[in-house]
C-alpha cells in the first residue's frame, strides 16, 4: 500500500457561509484537531487550512478509503446531520496536488488571483509543521505549491489590477496624490463599502474624518481608524481641506452640488480633490466632475474598472492553469520516484550484498594485498554494482503507463521483498540513487 495525498473540504464554491463559519477553526483548535485526525483517521501527515472562504484538510494516508471516511465524518460532526450533503469535495493523488497548487495560486479563490490565500496557506502549513504533522510528502507538496504560486504571480497577469471596489479606490487615489501618507480622507455616511474604502485609505497612512447624521456611528467608525468624527454641518469646512471624499449616504438627492463645490473650490484654491461616490442614489452631482481639479468616480465607474480587471485576470487564468499543469506533472514524476524508493533500496542492497559476499569469499585467497590494491578491489566492486543497476534504475525512473508492471517485474527478477512503508531516510537515499542513475545516463 503506497502513501497517497488527499484533500477533503468545503469552499465558497460548494458551501454557503452559514455552514463554512461552523466549520472554521482558530489556530488553537486547528492544532488540537490536527493531532486528533492524525491519531484517529489513518493519516500520516495533515495540514488544515481554514479561511473565510474554505476549510480544507490536505493530508497523506496509506489507507485512502478509511481516511476519506474519517475526515468527512470530522466535518459532518460539527454541523446538523445532512447539512453538508453534496458540499464536501474530495481530491486524491494528482487531483489533490492540482487542487493545492490552484488554491495557493489564487485560481480557486472567490476573487480570482487574490494574493491573501497564499499567506493563509503558508500560515496553515507553518502551524502543522510546528505541530509535527508534516513529513516528506506533504512538506514537498506545500513547498512546491508556494513556488507555483510565485511563478503564476510573476509570469502571468493574474494579480494585475485590483478587483475590489475599496482597493480600486485606493489605487486611483494614489494615482492622483502619489503617497497617501498624511492625506485627508473624508468619509460622508457610513455604508459598508464606503467604510471599507476609508479603512483601506487609512491603512495607507491617510488621516480619516467621518461625517454622519448619527454621531455615535461616526465616532465608532472614526475611532476604528484613529480618525475624527464631525457633524453633518461641518461638511463644507471639511470639503475645503479634504483630498479624498468618499460618500455613501442614503440621501435621496445630491448632497454635494456644483454650487457647493464652487464655494469650496475657492476656499481650497482648487487643490485637486477626488470624490468616490459609492451611494445609490448618488450623493455627488455628476456635473462637479467637470470642475477644475475635481475628479469624480461613482460606483458604476468603480465596478466597470473591477470588471475590466477581472476580465484581464480571467484571460491570464488560462496561462496560469498551464503553469499549474506543468508543475503538477513535475510533482507527479517526483511522487512516482518516491513510490519506487523501497524497490530501489531493496535492489541496491541485494546487488551490493551479493558482490560484497563474493569479495569476502575471494579475499582469503589474495594474500599480501597492499592498501592500494585493496582500494582498487573496493572500487571494482562498487563499479560492478553501479553498472549492474544502471539499466534497471533507468527503466524504473522512466515510469510511464506500465510503471507498476516494471516495478513488479524488477521485484520478481531479483527476488526482492519490498516493504512499501519504509521510512523516509531510505527514500531519500533512493532518491539520491535515482539522481545518480540519471546523471550517469546523461
Amino acid at each position, binding site marked *: 500500500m503506497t502513501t497517497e495525498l488527499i484533500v477533503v473540504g468545503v469552499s465558497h464554491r460548494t458551501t454557503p457561509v452559514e455552514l463554512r463559519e461552523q466549520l472554521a477553526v482558530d489556530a488553537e483548535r486547528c492544532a488540537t484537531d490536527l493531532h486528533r485526525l492524525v491519531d484517529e483517521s489513518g493519516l500520516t501527515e495533515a495540514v488544515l487550512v481554514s479561511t473565510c472562504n474554505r476549510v480544507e484538510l490536505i493530508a497523506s494516508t496509506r489507507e485512502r478509503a478509511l481516511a476519506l471516511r474519517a475526515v468527512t465524518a470530522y466535518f459532518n460532526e460539527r454541523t446538523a446531520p445532512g447539512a453538508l450533503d453534496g458540499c464536501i469535495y474530495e481530491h486524491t493523488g494528482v487531483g489533490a496536488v492540482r487542487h493545492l497548487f490552484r488554491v495557493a495560486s489564487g485560481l480557486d479563490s472567490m476573487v480570482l488571483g487574490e494574493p491573501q490565500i497564499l499567506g493563509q496557506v503558508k500560515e496553515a502549513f507553518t502551524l502543522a509543521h510546528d505541530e509535527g504533522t508534516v513529513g516528506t510528502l506533504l512538506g514537498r507538496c506545500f513547498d512546491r505549491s508556494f513556488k507555483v504560486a510565485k511563478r503564476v504571480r510573476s509570469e502571468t497577469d493574474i494579480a494585475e489590477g485590483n478587483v475590489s471596489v475599496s482597493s480600486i479606490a485606493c489605487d486611483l487615489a494614489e494615482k492622483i496624490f*502619489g503617497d497617501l501618507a498624511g492625506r485627508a480622507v473624508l468619509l460622508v455616511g457610513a455604508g459598508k463599502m464606503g467604510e471599507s474604502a476609508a479603512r483601506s485609505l487609512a491603512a495607507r497612512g491617510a488621516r480619516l474624518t467621518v461625517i454622519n447624521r448619527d454621531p455615535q456611528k461616526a465616532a465608532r467608525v472614526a475611532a476604528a481608524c484613529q480618525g475624527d468624527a464631525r457633524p453633518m454641518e461641518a461638511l463644507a469646512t471639511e470639503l475645503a481641506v479634504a483630498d479624498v471624499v468618499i460618500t455613501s449616504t442614503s440621501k435621496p438627492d445630491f448632497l454635494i452640488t456644483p454650487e457647493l463645490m464652487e464655494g469650496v473650490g475657492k476656499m481650497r484654491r482648487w487643490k485637486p480633490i477626488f470624490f468616490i461616490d459609492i451611494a445609490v442614489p448618488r450623493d455627488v452631482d455628476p456635473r462637479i*466632475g467637470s470642475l477644475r481639479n475635481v475628479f469624480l468616480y461613482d460606483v458604476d465607474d468603480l465596478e466597470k*474598472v473591477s470588471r475590466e480587471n477581472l476580465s484581464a485576470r480571467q484571460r491570464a487564468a488560462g496561462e496560469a492553469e498551464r503553469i499549474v499543469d506543468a508543475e503538477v506533472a513535475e510533482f507527479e514524476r517526483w511522487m512516482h520516484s518516491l513510490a519506487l524508493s523501497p524497490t530501489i533500496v531493496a535492489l541496491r542492497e541485494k546487488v551490493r550484498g551479493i558482490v560484497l559476499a563474493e569479495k569476502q569469499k575471494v579475499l582469503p585467497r589474495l594474500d599480501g594485498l597492499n592498501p592500494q590494491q585493496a582500494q582498487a578491489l573496493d572500487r571494482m566492486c562498487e563499479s560492478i554494482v553501479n553498472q549492474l543497476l544502471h539499466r534497471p534504475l533507468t527503466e524504473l525512473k522512466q515510469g510511464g503507463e506500465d510503471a507498476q508492471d516494471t516495478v513488479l517485474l524488477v521485484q520478481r527478477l531479483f527476488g526482492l521483498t519490498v516493504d512499501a512503508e519504509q521510512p523516509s531516510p531510505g527514500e531519500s537515499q533512493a532518491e539520491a540513487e535515482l539522481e545518480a542513475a540519471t546523471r550517469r545516463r546523461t
Partner: protein
Amino acid sequence: MDLAAALFLGTVASYALACAFFFAHLARGGERSTRLATRTLAASIGLHVVFLGVTMADAGRPGLAGIHQTLAVLSFLVALGFLASMRRRRLTVLGAFITPVTLLLLLGAGLRGHVTEVPEHVRSAMLSVHIVVNVLGIVAFALAFAVALAYVIQEQLLRRKQLGGVFQRLPALDVLDALGLRLVTIGFPLFTVGVVTGSIWAAQLGRGSASLSTGQNFALLAWLFFACVLLARAAAGWRGRRAAVGTMLGFLCALAAIGGYLLQSAGGT
C-alpha cells in the same frame, strides 16, 4: 561623408531608436523595454559626446560657436539631464516625451552641415553668459515640458476613466505637478538672466527694442508664459492642468525662439 556628418546621423538614429523603445515601454510596459530604452539613450548620449568633440575640434575651439552648435549642446544636455534626474526617481517612462524633444533639437542643429561662427565683432563675455544660462534654462524647461505633457495625458485618462496600461505606467498627478513646478522654478531664474544679458548685449551692439528679431520676440513670450505660470501658482493657487498647459506653451515659445534664431542664421543676418 565626413566624420562629423556620420556621427551626427549615427546619433540621430540612436536617439530615434531610444525614442521607439520609450514609446514601446509606455504602450506595453515591461522591464525589458525600459532597459533597452535606457541603454539605447545612454549609448546615444555617448555618441553625442563624440559628435560634439569632433565638431568642436573642427571649429578649432570649444564652446557654443553659433546657434547650431548651441542646439547640439542643448539637445545633449536635455538627454543627459533626463537620464540623470528621472532615472533616480523611477520616471524613465517620461523618456517617451523627452527623447522626441532631444531629437528635434538635434535635428535643428543639423539643419546646416557646418558650424557658423559668431562674427568677431559681436563676441563678448556677456554673450557667453547669455548663451550658457539660456541653454541651462531651456534644459529645465524641456524637462518641465515632458512632465507637463505627461500630466495632461494622465489627467485626461483619469477623467475619461481609461485606466489601462498607459495610465498605470505614468506617474501620479501630484508627483508630476510638483516636479513640473520644481523644474520651472529652476529654469525661470536662469532664463531671466539669459533675457537680461541678451538685452544688455543687444544694447551694447546698439540694437534697440524696436528692432527685436522673431527669435527675441518668442523668447520674451516664453519668459512671459513661465512668469505667468509661476505667478499664478503662487498668487492664484494654479496647479494641475492649467499650470501644465502654461508650461507647455512656454516651452513651445522657447522652441519658436530657437526656430527664429535658426531662420535668422540661415538668412545670414
